[in-house]
């Protein structure tokens, strides 16, 4: 819990600051707190949050997945193709895409587990490979549903009305379900316990009779599957995917969200709640900038600076706490 205190405080500070700064004294309205804005924000948190959980799945095993953005691209290109060009019904198309992305994860896992290739190398190649293949597959044409597929797009753009003009965006609900299931898996099941043991010390876990290979496979499959799910939501949301840049850099956002949320890159450490907070922060910051600043030129700089400051403050506070409460039983 102490691990996520820092990020929780940081998030709170940013949220309050944005609410104060974006307040329009003239009209008395507050764009940040408007139902419309919160709804959009929740939608993005849902979409990117799923990606961060995907990243966290592999990171807790001590691995890394750099191909997340390219898997998003695969989902973003294949789903419209199935729906629009092949006319596959949505109920079949989405599971097909998820199956395909899960297969990608399986492939990563097999390369890592059987051939003992470094996860960084395998997924870096994946990053290049899948995007390249999608460029050839789409012939560099933009993929979208056009004006068809209104029904299935509800998954990404729909809301469950809560009254007062505010509706819970479906992607947020999907994210909450994914987060809850993941948290249950990690904390309450044998698989979760074994996953974390493997991440902390793969050799000791193996010596303890844990089926490390199968678990690692599982982590990669879960990661790519969730990336595929998020990819579906993204393309259903924006309705436009260009293979050369759809999902570009999303692996970094995903990993940043997870790491910000206290998931340790050396493996064996992480809380789903932390990942959720990290993902929130990653989405609130650009929203802040868009609502407060005159342009979004400084967006990257601000996001980078805030994450760094957050990490630094977190570390400093933790040390200070450790110094104040030493040893004694």
């Amino acid at each position, binding site marked *: 819990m102490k691990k996520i205190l820092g990020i929780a405080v940081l998030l709170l500070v940013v949220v309050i600051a944005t609410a104060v700064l974006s307040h329009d004294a003239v009209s008395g309205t507050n764009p940040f707190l408007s139902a419309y804005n919160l709804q959009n924000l929740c939608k993005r948190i849902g979409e990117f949050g799923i990606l961060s959980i995907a990243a966290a799945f592999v990171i807790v095993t001590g691995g890394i997945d750099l191909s997340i953005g390219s898997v998003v691209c695969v989902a973003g290109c294949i789903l419209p193709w199935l729906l629009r060009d092949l006319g596959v019904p949505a109920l079949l198309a989405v599971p097909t895409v998820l199956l395909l992305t899960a297969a990608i994860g399986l492939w990563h896992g097999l390369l890592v587990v059987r051939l003992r290739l470094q996860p960084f190398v395998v997924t870096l190649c994946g990053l290049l490979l899948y995007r390249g293949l999608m460029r050839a597959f789409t012939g560099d044409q933009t993929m979208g549903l056009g*004006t068809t597929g209104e029904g299935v797009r509800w998954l990404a753009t729909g809301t469950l009305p809560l009254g007062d003009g505010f509706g819970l965006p479906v992607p947020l609900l999907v994210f909450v379900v994914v987060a809850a299931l993941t948290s249950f898996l990690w904390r309450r099941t044998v698989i979760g316990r074994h996953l974390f043991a493997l991440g902390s010390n793969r050799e000791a876990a193996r010596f303890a009779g844990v089926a490390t290979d199968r678990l690692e496979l599982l982590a990669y499959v879960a990661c790519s599957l969730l990336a595929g799910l998020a990819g579906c939501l993204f393309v259903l949301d924006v309705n436009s995917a260009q293979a050369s840049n759809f999902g570009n850099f999303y692996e970094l956002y995903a990993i940043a969200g997870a790491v910000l949320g206290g998931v340790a890159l050396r493996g064996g450490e992480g809380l789903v709640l932390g990942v959720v907070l990290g993902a929130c922060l990653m989405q609130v910051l650009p929203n802040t900038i868009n609502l407060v600043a005159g342009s979004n030129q400084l967006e990257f700089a601000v996001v980078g600076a805030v994450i760094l400051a957050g990490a630094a403050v977190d570390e400093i506070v933790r040390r200070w706490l450790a110094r104040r409460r030493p040893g004694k039983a």
Partner: protein
Amino acid sequence: KGAAAARPKVAFVSNCVAEFWAIAQRGAEAAAKEQGVEVLVKMPPTGTAAEQQSILEDLLAKGVRGIAVSPKDPANMGGLLDQIAARTLLVTHDSDAPASKRLAYIGMRNYDAGRLCGQMIREALPKGGPIVLLVATLDQDNARGRRQGIIDELLGRSVDAARFDAQDAALSGNGFEIRATYTDQFDPQKGKAVIEDALGRWQDLAGVVGLFEYEPPLVLEAVKAAKRLDRVKVFGFDENDQTLQGIVDGEVAGTLVQNPYEYGYQSVTLLARLLQTPDEAQRRALLPAGGFMDIPARRIDKSNVRAFWDDLKQKTGRK
């Protein structure tokens, strides 16, 4: 195979990967077929000047007989372009490099297209109002030209293609106010997100312009989802299917289209015919006057969208 090898090779080089260039590729390939040449179409995958330079160098190494390129950074690429011109036939398209030794430029003037767009906005919003611009990136000449054209036209300024207003400059006049220029760095999710945020921030927006091909549909989506189609007008550039459908449905006020198919077609045709003409004087006669082949931007709105769309579908072979 043997015949293909014997056909002279020319190259058509874009400045990034985009649907726009996929259409241009069709034009280039059509022309190559007609002229009996082989065309290599190359696109810098992440759209950087360095990538484009590598591609051009490798094309020279490969021994192509002519190159048509949309230079990523005309002001600074003079040396490379001259080096190419010294080794092979060079034309520019889409974006010109007037100071270089290129033989001709095939395309339009982005600043002029911007002003055309501005006119369209003024007609649609006679009383003016707050406007937001969405552009992929501001560090490309075409993006800057278009944006400046729109701003200058809306504020009623004189024609000056060299002017540049900073991204966060406060700009208003003539009843219009440019509230912000947002960039999305080619990420559609980000593009949609910033427009959503802008709609949330300002309740009084009168219009939003998407300056790159994939952007008007994102703007349309965002405005539609905010249920503000009645108060926020959508303008755009280029001929994305959804943009055109939006015009048909009356949801998009209009778009400014370039003619990428013609860029490709005319570039390759010109290169091929230059190659086939041994005589120097006759060659010179093939070049357009002033070295500029104008493929003007066209304004597409409710009145002409059907005809334009049908023609486009036929040319690109898409349904």
